[in-house]
Every structure is written in structure tokens, then in C-alpha cells.
């Protein structure tokens, strides 16, 4: 049985090898055990509510198969994109160049450097074991964060954003980067991507081109990559769209990947039940649900069969109740798979 729970320090080695196995780079999962440990520590302080006032909370969840204790995925929420520094994106816009005299009208696409998304709730650090990509565990891992946000809404901004990895070729190079960023950063995409995860944003202020970029001047491959997610991220994109996320105008400054945006209070809200330990219902389990407990530091979310005993109570298989670490009467958040 799979569950999603807060990451712990002992997960670090497993996270490290998971990140290495990803087809696309996950830039917010540092490739160094020390930095990963720092990240997990901050996450634990965030779940406990003991992060320092100057420290923006960053939550890291992991997907575990509790039958094998195997760590199979990670997913994160940053409460404040940019984490106290500017959050850089390109904002895709159009200018209309119209000549009255020549009777022509052209729509000219322009990328503006933007910090508009700074300080929003950012879903990030999504990684999952390759063999689970097509399984329901994918949805469990991704959507469990929304259940957490629904329960702890006051910890987050109402606006939620997700940056999806942009197109890269097999060698890990990005056509958008090769056409644009490389001229200004004078380094490989992977190097810049790594720096962005670990350095202060001074190097972005120093190296980013500050003038608007005309899209028509980019290479064909770069234009094609604009706002298109990496093949490995299309499943995420579909899931998020189904959830109510919309494609925004903002693009990743390195790979041109898309940003999806949602307003938390406009998303479908989970149903709320009390856990009923005593089986009253005679009916067979009525389907598969994502069920989460209402704890902050002991948050658990599982994919399980469940039966509504009445409007307020939910029966769960004993295994699921154990996995969620709940007792009779515990409050639950529930959504359809």
C-alpha cells in the first residue's frame, strides 16, 4: 500500500537515488546529500511550524510503499516562490504591429522578464519512480498536496502555481536555452539549472538579459519548445488541468517550460468525513478514493477503498486506517481518484 507522508532525514539516500533516476531534471531536488538533508530539515521544521520567521516554509512529501518501506516519489510545496528572493519567469505577451498605410497587422510575440509570480504557493519537486508513472500512485502523490493545502489553507497563498519541466533532448540540453540563455550565461543548461537551485539570485540579476525578447528571433526549435512541457511532465500537466489548473502566460527562464496556475478556493474542495472504525455498512467498498488525515506534522494520504456509512462517516479498510495513523472519529479529507 502506498502512502504520502512528510519526508524524514532517513529518506535522504533514497531521495537522492530517486532523483538520479528521473528522465527530466528536477531542479528543486539538489543533487548533494548535504543539501538534500538541509531541504528535508527545513521541510520538517515547516511541518512542525518551527521554521524561523525569516525562513519561508517549504514542505517536502514522499511516496512510500509501506509494505516494502520503499521510497517511490517526492513532491513539494514552497509557500513562497522565490523563497524570499525574486522568482524569475518570462511573461509571454503580444504586441500588435499594425501599419495603417500598408494595411498590415502583425502580432509580435514578446517575452518580458517578470517577477510577478514571486511569493506565491509553488508546487514543485515532483519525482516518481519510473514504473509508477502510469499507476494511480502518480495521482496520489501529486494530488495529496492539494488535500494538504485544502486542510491548511491559511499557510498558503490562494494562488497556486506549478512550473512544468520544459522540453529537453536526450542529452539533457534545452533548445530554448541553446537559443537564448546560453548567449548570456555562457554555460550549459544543466549547469545553470543547478546553480539556480543552490545559489542566491544575484547571478540571475547579473546574467539575465533585461530587455524584452522577440520570440521571432529565436530558433525554430526554441519557438517550438516555448511553453511545451517535457514529455515526462505531460502526465502531470493533464492531471493538473483536470484538477482545475490553467495554462498561464509565464515560462521558465531556462527551458521555456510552462507554468500552470490555479486559485485554491476555486478548486474542487475535498469532502470531509469522520473516520468510523466500526463497520456498519453491508455494501461492498464503493470505489477508490484519496483519503488524507487532518494532521500537519503527521500528515498521511492514501489511496484506498472506502464506504460512506452516512453523510458524515466513512469506513475504511483496517490497513488504510493504520496507514493513515487514525483512530475512530478522526477527521478525514476525501476526493475521488
Amino acid at each position, binding site marked *: 500500500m502506498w502512502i504520502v507522508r512528510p519526508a524524514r532525514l532517513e529518506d535522504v539516500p533514497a531521495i537522492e537515488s530517486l532523483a538520479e533516476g528521473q528522465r527530466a531534471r528536477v531542479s528543486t531536488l539538489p543533487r548533494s546529500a548535504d543539501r538534500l538533508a538541509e531541504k528535508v530539515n527545513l521541510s520538517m521544521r515547516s511541518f512542525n511550524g518551527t521554521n524561523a520567521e525569516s525562513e519561508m516554509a517549504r514542505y517536502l512529501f514522499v511516496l512510500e510503499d509501506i509494505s516494502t518501506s520503499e521510497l517511490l516519489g517526492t513532491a513539494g510545496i514552497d509557500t513562497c516562490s522565490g523563497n524570499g528572493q525574486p522568482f524569475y519567469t518570462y511573461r509571454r505577451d503580444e504586441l500588435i*504591429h499594425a*501599419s495603417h*498605410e500598408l494595411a498590415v497587422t502583425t502580432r509580435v510575440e514578446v517575452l518580458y522578464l517578470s517577477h510577478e509570480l514571486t511569493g506565491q504557493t509553488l508546487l514543485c519537486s515532483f519525482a516518481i519512480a519510473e514504473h509508477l508513472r502510469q499507476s494511480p500512485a502518480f495521482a496520489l502523490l501529486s494530488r495529496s498536496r492539494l488535500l494538504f493545502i485544502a486542510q491548511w489553507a491559511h499557510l498558503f497563498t490562494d494562488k497556486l502555481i506549478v512550473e512544468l519541466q520544459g522540453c529537453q533532448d536526450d542529452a539533457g540540453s534545452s533548445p530554448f536555452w541553446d537559443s537564448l540563455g546560453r548567449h548570456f550565461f*555562457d554555460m550549459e543548461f544543466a549547469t545553470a539549472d543547478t546553480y539556480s537551485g543552490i545559489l542566491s539570485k544575484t547571478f540571475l540579476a*547579473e*546574467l539575465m*538579459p533585461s530587455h524584452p525578447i*522577440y520570440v*521571432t*528571433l529565436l530558433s525554430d526549435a526554441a519557438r517550438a519548445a516555448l511553453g511545451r512541457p517535457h514529455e515526462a511532465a505531460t502526465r502531470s500537466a493533464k492531471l493538473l488541468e483536470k484538477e482545475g489548473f490553467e495554462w498561464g502566460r509565464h515560462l521558465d527562464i531556462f527551458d521555456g517550460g510552462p507554468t500552470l496556475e490555479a486559485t485554491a478556493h476555486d478548486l474542487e474542495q475535498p469532502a470531509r468525513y469522520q473516520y468510523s472504525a466500526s463497520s456498519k455498512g453491508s455494501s461492498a467498498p464503493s470505489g477508490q478514493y484519496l483519503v488524507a488525515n487532518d494532521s500537519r506534522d503527521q500528515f498521511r494520504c492514501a489511496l484506498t477503498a472506502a464506504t460512506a456509512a452516512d453523510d458524515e462517516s466513512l469506513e475504511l479498510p483496517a490497513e488504510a486506517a493504520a496507514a493513515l495513523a487514525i483512530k475512530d472519529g478522526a477527521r478525514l479529507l476525501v476526493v475521488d481518484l
Partner: protein
Amino acid sequence: MSTIRPIRMSDLEDLYEMARSAGVGVTTLPADRELLRSRIERSVESFDRQIEPELASYLFALEETDAGRIVGVCGIDSRVGLDEVWYNYRLSNTVNSSRELGVHVQNPTLYLTNDMTNSSELCTLFLDEAWRGDGRGPLLSRSRFLFLADFAELFSEKIFAELRGVSDQEGRSPFWEALGRRFFNMDFYQADMLTGRGNKAFIAELMPKHPIYLALLGAEAQDVVGKVHENTRPALRMLEAEGFNFNGLLDIFDAGPVIEAFTHTIRAIRDSRERRVVLMSESGNEAAPPEHRVMVSNRRFEDFRVLAVAATRLTFDTLSLAAHEADALGVAPGDSVRLVGLKQATGPSDELSAGANHG
């Protein structure tokens, strides 16, 4: 004899024939009779002082008196950008540098400017192919500076020339293909013709206004930025020898260089001298290669004339002219003329000081 004089309406057919033979590249001289007529008209009005000095456009013709026709034309616009908008790109430098990361990249950047507004332009230069040689090119091009020397108050402190940029035999400009075409959706030739006809509102409407990073334009376009068409190289060398410099301004369509000079630093102005005319009895047909000639202006405005004579005609304070030369210049003994070496190497100031040193 080759004489420089203001263009006249009667030169129209000669000019039109020259324009027809010039071909596509020379957009300052389009083969359009009406346009040429109006340019001559404007020049005639300018020399007649019937036009505001800032809007004046002076065209000079090279007349071959034996052939009885003009074979070349050159011009000065007293001011550009006052009754229209004058665009250039400024080639500037942006450095992306991070000491922390050890990165230091220079990114040339183009800014759309109107920096030449209110400056004087060397606006046209064309010499009939068949009449090249024997110093006619230098005479045609540089005679203008003798006009500038005596009537500097009509022009700006800074003079510039826009030189034709690189394009291939089909008139395809790599810079245009990389930049202009993506915004104008027309051929370089069309855009150039439109602006040549004074039609510039479409530039304000369609031109990208934000700075352009050169790196995004590709190697072929980058290579031609600030370079001249190979046919224009002699003109560039000539102007450089006169003290003109490339200072970062470019043509917005083909990225050809704008070269500029302060009037008082132009060699043919700085080194020009005044002399009094004396008449000589000889025919004045002695052979002197262009390097050993001086060009002489009569210092008049409406009846401006320039011709070239052997440098040996000079003394410390006089210039000897044959009767037909004095006639062509419209000067009499005792009149003041302005002169300067036709080419730099043996200009009259050198001649003079050399003469003084050795004498």
C-alpha cells in the same frame, strides 16, 4: 575638363540615365523621373536660398565640358530627421558578468535611435561607370568639403554618411533576413524603396522598438554588422582618409555603417588654404597624376564651382590658372579661391610645408 557645379533642371535626363544604369543597390538614386525631378528642384531652391536652410538639400553635378553632359552627382542634406524621422541602430555593448561564477560575456546590443536627427548628411554619391578614373571619383566626392568649408554655418557641426551594407548579387541582405523581414514581411528592396521615397511612418508602426541582442540574429547577420558592400569599400576608404570614423551607428535595414566626422576635423577642410588667382599664359594642360593635383573652389554659393589643377600651380600665396580654367571657375585675377590636395598623401599643406622646408 571635369567641373563640379550645382545641378540644374536641364540635367534631369542625364541623371535619369545614370540612375537607370545604377541598378537596385543605389537607393539614394532611384530611377524614377518624378522623384529625380523633385530632388533637382529642391537642390535648385536650396542654392537659390528659397528654402529654409535646415531643409536644404544641395546636389552637385560633375560635368564633363567636352562631352557636354554630367557624369556624376553627389549631395549634402543640410539636416536630416526634421520633417521625417531618421532612424539608426546604435551598436552598443552589454556585458553579462558574474564574478561569483567567473562568467564574463559581451553581448552586442542594438538600440533603435534617432541620434542623427538634425545632423548634415553626405546623401548621394554616384559616378557613371564609364567615367571612372583620372581622379574624377575623389574630385566628385571631396569637392563637397570645399563647399562645407566656406558655408559651415549652414550645416551641423557633425557630418555623416550612411554607407551601403552587405548584400549578395540578388540584393539579399543577411541582416535584413535575420531581423527586418521578421517584422516587415517584405523584401529589403521594397523597404528600402519605401524609405527612399520618404515614406517612414511604417517604420514607427512595424519596427521592433525594444533593444535587439545581436546574438539572437545568427552568425551570418552578425558578420555583416557595420560592414560595407564591396562596391562601397572605395567610398569608405576615401571618407576614412578624410577623417571619418565609424562610431556605432548602423543602417536599420542592412546594418551598413554610419561614419561621421566633426566638420573642422575633415582633412579637406582642415588642410584647405586660400590663395589669390593669377592668370598664366600656358594652356594649363600639363599632365599631373591625381596625387599631384589640388582641387580649387571659387568660394561662391549659388555659382559654386570646383575643378582640379596640378599642384605645381601653387606658390606661397597664389594659384596660377589658365584662362579657360578661370572662366570655368568664374574667377578673375586677384579673386580668392580655396584649395586642398585632391588626395591626402600629397595635399597642399604638405606640398607647401615641404616646399617651404626645401626652399
